[in-house]
């Protein structure tokens, strides 16, 4: 009996996972794509149900100290060819440049706007950034919960960036695939602000790619849907494809 108890204890110690372990493992499932080229559609829906559409081309380059991305606006037409170049700096302020085609201007923008709305959607700039697990502090051991018959890891994480618009985030990761499925994001006052849902995961070359994200702002009742119409990974983009010279 004593031996069984000891064995169980050793098993628990050996196999207990911290929240950060689960977050890292989940991140590993979606990382390793090298570079990606995607076309996305964003649907904005207000509390009355009115809808607006945005279309974007997204180019991304993975980096050990932060990802680089180039977003090219395709629709609405008046925004066409506007470009946003971002360098994620883990543990620091990101760098961002905006290219305005009407006046051919490359404008440096302050990157502390983590919580600001991205393209008037309910997504903030931090919601659409890389989701690198290193950007968060995880609290305690992971908790396993059941939701509608499915088992999830429940992770409590706090953004390291003091300019984040969130005080904490609770993310639910399925225990089989280690993929984030949904989450709850809390504002600086600790009130529930947004609910986020990740779905339509596609396995490309051994790497999971989320192809639909829905975010619902529970305070203003607006929601935004981001769907991937085209997505390719390991497309051979390099550092030069994300230098300032692409802003023209």
């Amino acid at each position, binding site marked *: 009996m004593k031996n069984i108890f000891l064995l169980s204890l050793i098993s628990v110690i050996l196999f207990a996972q911290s929240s950060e372990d689960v977050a890292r493992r989940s991140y590993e499932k979606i990382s390793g794509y090298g570079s990606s080229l995607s076309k996305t559609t964003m649907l904005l829906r207000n509390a009355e149900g009115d809808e607006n559409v945005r279309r974007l081309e997204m180019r991304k380059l993975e980096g050990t100290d932060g990802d680089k991305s180039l977003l090219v606006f395709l629709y*609405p037409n008046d925004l066409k060819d506007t470009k946003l170049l971002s360098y994620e700096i883990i543990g620091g302020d990101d760098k961002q440049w905006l290219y305005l085609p009407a006046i051919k201007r490359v404008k440096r923008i302050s990157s502390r706007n983590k919580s600001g709305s991205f393209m008037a959607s309910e997504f903030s700039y931090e919601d659409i950034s890389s989701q690198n697990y290193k950007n968060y502090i995880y609290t305690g051991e992971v908790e396993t919960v059941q939701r509608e018959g499915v088992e999830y890891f429940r992770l409590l994480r706090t953004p390291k960036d003091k300019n984040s618009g969130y005080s904490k985030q609770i993310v639910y990761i399925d225990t089989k695939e280690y993929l984030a499925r949904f989450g709850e994001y809390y504002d600086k006052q600790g009130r529930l602000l947004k609910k986020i849902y990740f779905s339509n995961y596609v396995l490309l070359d051994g790497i999971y790619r989320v192809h639909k994200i829905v975010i619902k702002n529970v305070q203003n009742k607006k929601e935004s849907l981001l769907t991937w119409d085209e997505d390719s990974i390991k497309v051979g983009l390099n550092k030069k494809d994300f*230098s300032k010279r692409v802003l023209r």
Partner: protein
Amino acid sequence: MKTFLLLFVLLNSLMAYEHKFEFGVEGMAYTKYTNEMLASGSAKLSFSNDLFQTDANLEFLYSSEYKERRYILLNEFYISKEFDEYSLSIGKKIKYWGELEGYNVADIYNQKNYLKDPFDKSAKYGTIGADITRYFDENSLELGVKLYEDSLSYPQNKTPYAPLPIPYDTTLHVSHSRYTPTFYISANILSDEYVDSETKFILLHGYDTKRDIIPNSLFSLSQYAYSVNKALLLSHIIYADTIFKTELSYTDVIDYEPMSDYTQLSFGLEKSFYEIAKTDITLYAEYYRYIYADNTKVKNVDISEIYDDDFFLALRINFNDVRSSELKIGVLEDINKNERICKAEANSRVFDSFVLHGEYLYILSKTNNTLLTKFDNSSRFMLGVNYTF
């Protein structure tokens, strides 16, 4: 024009191409001039194949009231080629050299389009030239040449904002030839070693973008283009969420005795506040100054500029709504002469492809013998809609 269109149709069949067309209708109400209706538009076309890319921008403006504000213009038409570490371009092109929001001391590659709107710094004419750029990671070195000095149309007689006392003749007088090239070299340096900053140095030799106004006879005036050596510095530094900016320029007039050498200084800062009543608010504060080496000579600010000892204060409110609604309000105050220009602009998208926009401009002129004196105390109001497809 026929040849150009034929060429486009032909190229279209051979290459990948993209387009962006814009058409706008505006009503302009003036307190000092006759009101007008404007139709304007642009066709931006881009062709690319394995060898090179061709870009063109055709613009038109039609005023119901003022004949000189009617034109159709191939404002840009250039071919470019990208290599791994180099890029080349040749043709008629618009460039932007600037850091500040209200006025750009350093934005001298192109002539301003005063016919379109003397108070819109983005209204510019394409310049014929060529450039080659060498890239070093995030830094770059550009060598360029302007190949031709174009005549410039000016508002005249009874058109809005005519600055000259007698009719203007578009004949351009030049110190050498219209085809005498203007050379420049530009270095762009990005750094985050001590502070997060970006700096551009430009050295230019050739015709000054600013020109003197000289009499042809008792009855008309024309522009005179003179040669200069010019040094420019553009820089910004980011500290927290504030951007500090500067544009500096020194001009040594080479071959035109009546014109004084001059220095232009400008400084500014930009600070953004996010999520203020669901809006993002950006504040701009800027200062512009001319300094002349010889006060007895012609001062360029007297004949073509209003930005001397001027303070500019503005704010931009982004409403973060699905219509991308935006409100911009700015005041330009001449500290010395107590003159003032106030401008408010608003725009909002409707039905995805249409953008409604409005503008109010107010000029308060209190001093004699300045450029603004000609415009008197006046205001204008504009309301329009743009369709992009």
